[in-house]
Each structure stands twice: as C-alpha cells, then as structure tokens.
C-alpha cells in the first residue's frame, strides 16, 4: 500500500424503519458500494423500555464509537457522573493521534461527538426534520469531505458551502495533506425530533424539543436521507473516476441502523425467532459427535473476552466496507437487509469493535503482539 488510507463513514442512523425499507428506494450508488465491498452487521445492546428515537441514537452511537469503555474517571466527590456530564478519553489519545471530523443532523449527537474528540459540526441548520432541500448539496459535500481527508482540493463552489464554512476557515480544509483528517464521519438521522426528557447534554440550549414526526413524515425523511447518501456516494465515485489517487486511498464505510420503533415494536418476538441458528448440518458416519453439534459463542456476544448478556439478536446495524483492495468481496449484490443477513462476508461483530477496525485501517491502531 503506497499511502495510508483515509476513511469516510456515512451513518444513516435510524434510516431503516423496518426490514424492507431499502427495497422501496432506488439507491444505485449504494448498491454498487455493497456489490463491490464486504458487508456485515454490527450487534447492539437491547434498548431500555420506553426509549425515544433520540435516546436510541445516542445510546447506539456510544457503542459504535466504543465510548463506554473510554469514560474518563472524574468527579472529585466520588459520585457517579450523570449521563450528560460524562467525559471521554479523546480520540487523539485513544487512537495514536487520530484527527477526525464529525457532521451530524442532530444537535445532541454533535455534542456527543465533540466530547469524544471529533471536530464536530451540524450538517443542517434545520432541526425539525430532513428532506432533500434541507441537506447540503451532495456534490459539494463530497468534494469537501475528500478535501478534509487530503484526497482532493475543494473547488470554489464547494468551498463556499455553508456546512464547511467553519472548517474551511481553518487549516483542516486547506487541502494540505499534512493537515488533513484521518477520518470524516457523516451522521444523518432522519428523525431529528429531540427528546428533552432524555439523552441530551445538559448544556444544550439552542434546539428546543420538536414535535414527533408523523409516520408518513418519517418515511419521507428516511427516504430523503438514503437518497442523499446515495447522491453523495455517486458524487464521490464521479470524483474518483477523475483522479485514481482517490480510489487508491479512500476507505468508504456505510452504516445503516434501525429506528427505535422498528426495534421496540418487534424486538421480543423476533429475538425468540432468531435464537436457533438455521444452519443445517448433515449427519455423517465419520464425524465425532461433538464436532457437528459444536456451536461456539459468537464474537459479537463477547467484549474483551467477557460474555455479554444484553445484546439484542435482531435489528443489528447493517455495514458495508468498500475500498479498492482493502476489503474482501462477498456475494451481496445490492444493499438489501435480506441480502446482507444471508450473504455477508463479515457476518456480525459487536458494534463496540467497529471503530477499532476503522482506526487500524487508517493507521491509528497498533498491531497487538509481535
């Protein structure tokens, strides 16, 4: 590998309203990303009763960034800190000097990302919901993302994009490879209605609670989010076709998670369905009894060697890893939940391990051992 890869993570948080959401939306660029990459799932914890979408989002992002393991010990009184008051070891310390940008459609998620050590910004000023008109221009955003990663130089048009104003005014957006980011994380949550009772940081003052979205509004917002992500990836592919150095270094990762209603409404019944593995093992005359019956604990059911008991067995987040020569290629042909659950090459890992994978790919995690 000539140069260290740079990573662009696109997270459609709560974009999946059910298992067939993706089947009703035409996303050719995302399909191609899945077809030419390696897919899998990220296992998440069971949700507490009565959890809101905003709370689910924060709980699951903490897992995806593995923040729970990296809480800083604090509080001179020795009392446990409130959820909002927690601080975390910074990305820079955790991952060998990693520098990363975070764009989110949610104020509370943006605040969490800042605490985790990202340079974070809002993706859109609007906090009531998402549609195509409220999101940044995909082509400009693609160009600017690659500029932040040191893989492109922003044109005059994209440099003027509102969402990047703050960063382009700093060294990060200069296009100078020496000052570029290792990683850009784009977080897009269609249901941005925040819940003032729950998971927001206490210092939040600038976005008042919004009314819950109607089912139809939510469907439209989810569709708009996925279509925007598709347009963003299509724009990246276009830039890649003009400059082969982008494809040689870009590590593109797409994560799609389920909306809280999808998990809580069907969670219990689906878990009982998911428990027995469907893999058929044919009997043989020669095999030891224990061989065919062997069902090892799965990697996603453990953390640091300790078995976890609170992992949900359905509604894992879907994940696609795509890079020229940096990933495997599995048999998945399009971005469909049903394809990924039956044909993925990566199977399921614990969400907490996801960011460690990414950090290693961008050269910010060491080898473990000799």
């Amino acid at each position, binding site marked *: 590998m000539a140069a260290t890869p740079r990573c662009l993570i696109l997270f459609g948080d709560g974009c999946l309203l059910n298992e067939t959401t993706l089947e009703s939306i035409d996303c050719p660029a995302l399909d191609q990303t899945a077809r030419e990459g390696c897919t899998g799932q990220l296992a998440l914890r069971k949700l507490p009763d009565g959890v809101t979408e905003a709370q689910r989002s924060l709980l699951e992002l903490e897992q995806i960034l593995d923040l729970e393991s990296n809480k800083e010990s604090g509080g001179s009184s020795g009392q446990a800190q409130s959820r909002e008051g927690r601080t975390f070891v910074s990305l820079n310390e955790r991952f060998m000097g990693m520098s990363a940008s975070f764009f989110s459609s949610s104020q509370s998620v943006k605040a969490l990302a800042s605490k985790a050590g990202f340079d974070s910004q809002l993706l859109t000023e609007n906090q009531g919901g998402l549609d195509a008109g409220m999101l940044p221009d995909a082509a400009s955003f693609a160009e600017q993302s690659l500029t932040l990663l040191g893989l492109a130089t922003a044109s005059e048009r994209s440099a003027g994009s509102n969402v990047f104003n703050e960063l382009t005014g700093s060294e990060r957006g200069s296009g100078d490879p020496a000052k570029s980011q290792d990683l850009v994380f784009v977080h897009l949550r269609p249901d941005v209605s925040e819940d003032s009772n729950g998971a927001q940081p206490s210092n939040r003052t600038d976005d008042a609670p919004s009314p819950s979205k109607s089912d139809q509004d939510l469907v439209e917002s989810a569709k708009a989010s996925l279509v925007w992500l598709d347009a963003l990836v299509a724009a990246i592919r276009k830039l890649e076709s003009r400059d082969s150095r982008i494809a040689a270094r870009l590590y593109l990762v797409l994560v799609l998670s389920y909306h809280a209603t999808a998990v809580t409404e069907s969670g219990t019944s689906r878990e009982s369905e998911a428990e027995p593995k469907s*893999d058929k093992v044919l009997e043989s005359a020669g095999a*030891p009894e224990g061989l065919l019956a062997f069902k090892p604990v799965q*990697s996603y059911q*453990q953390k640091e*060697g300790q078995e976890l008991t609170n992992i949900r067995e359905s509604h894992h987040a879907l994940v696609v890893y795509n890079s020229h020569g940096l990933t495997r290629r599995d048999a998945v042909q399009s971005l469909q939940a049903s394809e990924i659950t039956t044909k993925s090459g990566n199977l399921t*890992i614990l969400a907490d391990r996801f960011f460690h994978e990414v950090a290693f790919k961008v050269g910010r995690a060491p*080898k473990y051992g*000799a």
Partner: protein
Amino acid sequence: MPSAHRVALVLVDGIGDLALPSLGFRTPLEAARLPNLDALAAAGVNGLMDPVEPGLACGSDTAHLSLLGYNPRVYYRGRGAFESMGAGLPMAPGDIAFKSNFATVDEESGIVTSRRADRHFEALGPVLCAALDGCRLHAFPDYQVNVRYATEHRCGVVVRGPGLSGNISGTDPLKDNLPLRTVEGLDGTPEAEHTARVVNAVSDAFRAILRGHPINAQRVAEGKNPANVVLLRGCGIRIQVPSLAAQAGVVPCMVAPTKIIAGLGLSLGMDILEAPGATGDYRTQLTSKAAAIAAALAAPAAPLPRVQVPGVEGSQPSGQAAGYDFGFLHIKAVDDAGHDRAGGLKVALLEAVDAMVGQLAARLWAAQAAGGPRYTLLVTGDHSTPVDYGDHSHEPVPLTACALADFVARRGEARVVSVDMAPFPLPRAATVEQTTSAPASVEQEADVGDGPPSGDAVRTFSEVAAARGSLGRFPGSCLMTLVKQCIGETN
C-alpha cells in the same frame, strides 16, 4: 493417555487476505486450486475466526496464545522468552530472556561503535558464551545467568531469580555510534525497577569478563573490533501458566521450526517434534512436517519422532510412548509471502499447503484404516496478512474442521490413497507468475470429489465461503473447545 479420537491442526500463518485487484478481486485462497482443502470444507463444518477479538490485528504470539486457550490479555508478556526458548535456551516460569548481540563499545566514552563485533563469529562466539555462562553477580547472589550462542554475532541470555519483570528496556542503542543504554523499568513497578538493576549488573559483569578475555586481546592485537559488550534487547519473561495438557486435557505435540512459535509451544509444555528439512521459511520441507505429525498421532503403531529439549544438544526420544492426540502443525511461508507483498507466490504456497494436507490425510487414513485412532483435521490461520498491505490485519480467518472419514468419502478413497507422497520444494517467487485467471471454475470444484455431502453448506475453503458455515464468526478462545469436542474430552 491419548484418546482414541485424535486431531491434527494445520495452522497456516497469515492465511487470510483481501480481494486483490491483481487476482480479479479474489483472495489468494479463492484464486488458488485447493482440492484437498475444498473437500475438507465441503465435508466438514466451517466458520470465521477472530484470533482474539474483531478489530485486533494480532501478532502470531498473541494469536497463538488465544487459539491454544490462554487469554493474551492476561498472559502475554512479550516475545523475548518465546524466541529464546525456541532457540534452545531452557527457561523456567519467571525467568527473563533477551535477544543479544556481541558488539564493540569504546571503553572510555561508552559509545557503541559497532553493534556487530564480527559477522563471522561461529568459532569464537561459543567460546565467549562459555566464558559468560554462569557468571556471578556479586550484588545479586540469588540470580543465575545463562548464555547460549545462537548464530553469527547473536546469543541468547537468560536470567533466573526471584521477582523479575519483563517490563524493562534494554542496553542496545539500536544504532551504531550511540551510547550504551542503561536499563530502566518501564511500568513504574518495584519489580521492574529491581529487574533493571539486576540486568545492569549482568551487563557490567559481561563487560568485565569480556574486557580481560584472551580472545579480545588477540583481536585488538590483530586490529579487529573487540567483542567487549553484549547488547541486551527484547526482554521477555517466561509466562507462568498451566501446561496445555493440564488445561485442555490433551496430549499435545507441535511441529514449528519458527522460533517464536516453538518457544510458545514449549512455554505451554508442548513437545516440539523434530521434522528434518523443516525450516520455517520458503525453503521448508512440508512433507517432513506432515510425516512427523502423522507419526506422532499414529503412535504407538508408528515410530515416534524425536523431540527438541531446550538446553540439550540434539534431539531426544519422546516420552509419550502411546503417542499424542493433538498435533499442531505450523506453516510460516504463507505469512512470509504476505509480508513480501507477493500475491502470486501466496497463491502458489497455498496450493503447496493443499498438497501437504493431501499427504497428511493419506498418512492418517492409512493409520485409521489399519485399526488406529479416528482422526479429525482442522485447518485455519492465526491472522490475515494481506499482500497489498504487507503486514498483519484484523480480518478474521477461515476455519474448517472435518472428520477424516468424511473427507475420504467426499474426496474418494482412491484419490486419497494414491496421492504422491514424495517431498516437494516450495514454489519460488521467481518462478511464480501472477495469477489473474477467471473466477473459481466448475472443473476446480469437480476435482474435489463427488462423494456425498456432509457437514454444513460450505463447499470451498476461503474467507468468504467460510462465512456461510455453521460455526458462524467466533473468537479464537473457542478453538481448544472444538479440539476437545473432537477428541471427546469435554471437561
């Protein structure tokens, strides 16, 4: 006593890879022609294995510890002891060891002028090692020092005594013309600080002996660099763990010419079998490895291979008259091809491993058919070493486990027993053309055999195919449980 059910585990170092553009976006496993490994996968059970945990790019040492059932987060203490034991230095739990060089230091300034006193030291090195071996530390009379010559300018140094720590720095400045370093504790513990003082005393004692040695007086008279210092680096402590036999309830043996793997096996109390011609690199003799493991697993019906004992010259008779029930066969060359970024060579080496697996299966089948034990074959790796990356990565590795009888039924007994048992050289980089052929073809699958299917739905051996196996994706800590299930020991 070994079980009537026995397991041969073929561990292909660095087996996993990524979709290589040069191979039409296939992995080397997908591109290689692997009739034996495919037949094992088709007749057995399969899965993806994370050597330790997803997202960790493991070294061979941490990965092997995990696979053999020892949590590296608890037991890993660096590679120094594994390397020293693998090189033949005896170590007890708690001993520390170093990789060491005979070097030249300017006595007045303390500058290391040459980190290698002489590359051609085969005649003098053993004499100087004998002079240093057993040297006394006046300030630390409870500590024992042993020195053994290795190769060229290198030797192994082991320190034994109470309360030693492996978390210390070394004396080696790592470049010429820099000062000899003072050893320091690295973790702030009293043990590390104490150990640093002991090792600095070792370094001083060595210098005192070497300074007055007639060999150095003669070298100075001849205008050569004196070998007046031993640089100490890569400290590691021998881990204190229950033996694999005690922990897993198996009678284990290993073929691993690679020093760090052999030393790790010795640390776990495994017998290291002699396999003539096995080198742990591109020159290795795979047929010899297969023969050694097959004989150990067929004993007492077959003569037992001899074993290596640290601190004892030459090989020794095995003490396991009834044979072994768990044979671990390590192959290094595939990992080397990954590090050397040689995709075509990695494909060819995997095909060579496949041929060796055919020879191993034939030998074991002969023993089983003659009324011997029932065998199960396992094939997996310790980590991925993608050739386009050139180092270890975190991607999981495929694992297949198959009863030998099912493999023979699938592959066809006539094919199994007629395999060419002659030794063969490994392919060389210069003669391997980059493989860019079409995706896995029908004829490639056809020569796997046409016996009845068994096991899970997987039909070929690769990283992607293994994901469809009944074992799912599991941590390496489960591997010995699988081995015990096959052997029949479930305690």
